[in-house]
């Protein structure tokens, strides 16, 4: 059973927020969806879960279209980033009510886990959403996602506003739940390096297009940081895909992404280092990459 989207285009006011996005999400993996602000992550997650209609393209689960399809929709859970400012109607709703509505709609809702997590996060259920801090709103998002027990669960910025200890708690809870149930999780996040070890596969969305999708480790292993004297570096990385050039005086540093079979030509006097996911991401999607 895979969730597949094909050639999804989403246009808002004449601008293509998503440009022909195609993805296959296999079951039983933890996926990371990373991208800069405005790359289209939330839009993509909304379209995948049929909460917003695509301008064109299709989303299917196990072959059946997801749009308006109860049988498909009950296998999906999209726990949105909550924005309960004074303008949105949500501000006056109590945590209790928000969770109760979620519990009504997710058949497998785990009441015991809900109680346990509320305790763990010290969340007062009688509090109104508008009165919660960003971190507490994230905790509500996390509770909905985990307790829904949905086969495909999508979390949009689940750690926004959480301090480092709470973030660590989240990753551990996620892994515990994943180990126990094998549910598929798709997590969009800005805090890349911390989450890198938890994500089996990574999807990099940049300006509405998918740049990378595949095994996180394989992607990171394909990247190298090459530095040294400018001419040596240029020679060593000839014919390779180069991103993110740093130049200080005569020295130069570049990030390269190797295709299968390619290597850096180390006959030149250059240092070749590995990079981590965050560095690879910044190299691919940072400003300087637009050369």
């Amino acid at each position, binding site marked *: 059973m895979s969730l597949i989207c094909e050639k999804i285009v989403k246009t808002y006011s004449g601008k293509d927020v998503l440009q022909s996005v195609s993805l296959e999400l296999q079951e039983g*993996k*933890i996926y990371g969806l990373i991208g800069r602000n405005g790359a289209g992550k939330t839009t993509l997650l909304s379209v995948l879960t049929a909460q917003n209609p695509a301008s064109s393209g299709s989303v299917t689960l196990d072959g059946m279209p997801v749009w308006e399809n109860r049988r498909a929709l009950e296998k999906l859970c999209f726990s949105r980033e909550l924005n309960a400012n004074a303008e949105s109607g949500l501000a006056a709703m109590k945590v209790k009510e928000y969770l109760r509505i979620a519990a009504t709609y997710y058949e497998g809702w785990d009441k015991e886990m809900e109680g346990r997590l509320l305790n763990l996060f010290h969340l007062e259920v009688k509090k109104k959403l508008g009165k919660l801090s960003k971190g507490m709103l994230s905790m509500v998002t996390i509770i909905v996602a985990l307790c829904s027990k949905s086969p495909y669960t999508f979390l949009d910025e689940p750690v926004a506003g959480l301090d480092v200890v709470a973030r*660590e708690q989240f*990753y*551990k809870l996620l*892994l*515990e739940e*994943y*180990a126990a149930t094998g549910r598929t999780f798709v997590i969009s996040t800005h805090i890349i390096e911390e989450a890198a*070890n*938890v*994500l*089996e596969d990574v999807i990099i969305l940049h300006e509405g297009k998918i740049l990378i999708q595949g095994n996180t*480790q394989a992607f*990171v*292993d394909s990247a190298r940081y090459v530095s040294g004297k400018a001419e040596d570096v240029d020679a060593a990385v000839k014919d390779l895909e180069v991103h993110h050039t740093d130049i200080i005086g005569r020295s130069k540093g570049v990030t390269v992404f190797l295709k299968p079979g390619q290597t850096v030509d180390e006959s030149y006097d250059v240092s070749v280092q*590995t990079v*981590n996911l965050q560095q690879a991401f910044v190299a691919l999607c940072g400003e300087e990459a637009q050369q």
Partner: protein
Amino acid sequence: MNGRLTEQKSIYLQIGEMIETDILRGILLEEEQVPSTNELAKLYTINPATAAKGVNLLVDEGILYKRRGIGMFVSKGARDKILSKRREAFAENHIAPMVAEAKSLDITKEKLVTMIEEKYI
């Protein structure tokens, strides 16, 4: 099993190495069960698939073996296997870089040997 993960090497390789080191240090004895992939994943906050990859690598090398329905165990003779594996890798991982570094500093072979003799107490 108490180490920190670094960024330098793939996580699954590090997991494998940590298990090996524990075997060498006698923290894990032959025929003893090693922590499950889920336990490893939880301990290091990594994806279970990554932990499994590291463990499977050791299974392929014969250092661990699997008992269906129970888990992973340290093979008989694992300690010796690990020692010989690391000895073989020693030349590549430690000697070669040392020689390269020595050459870039214009240290002659003879001087290098002397330095080694001085340090090998």
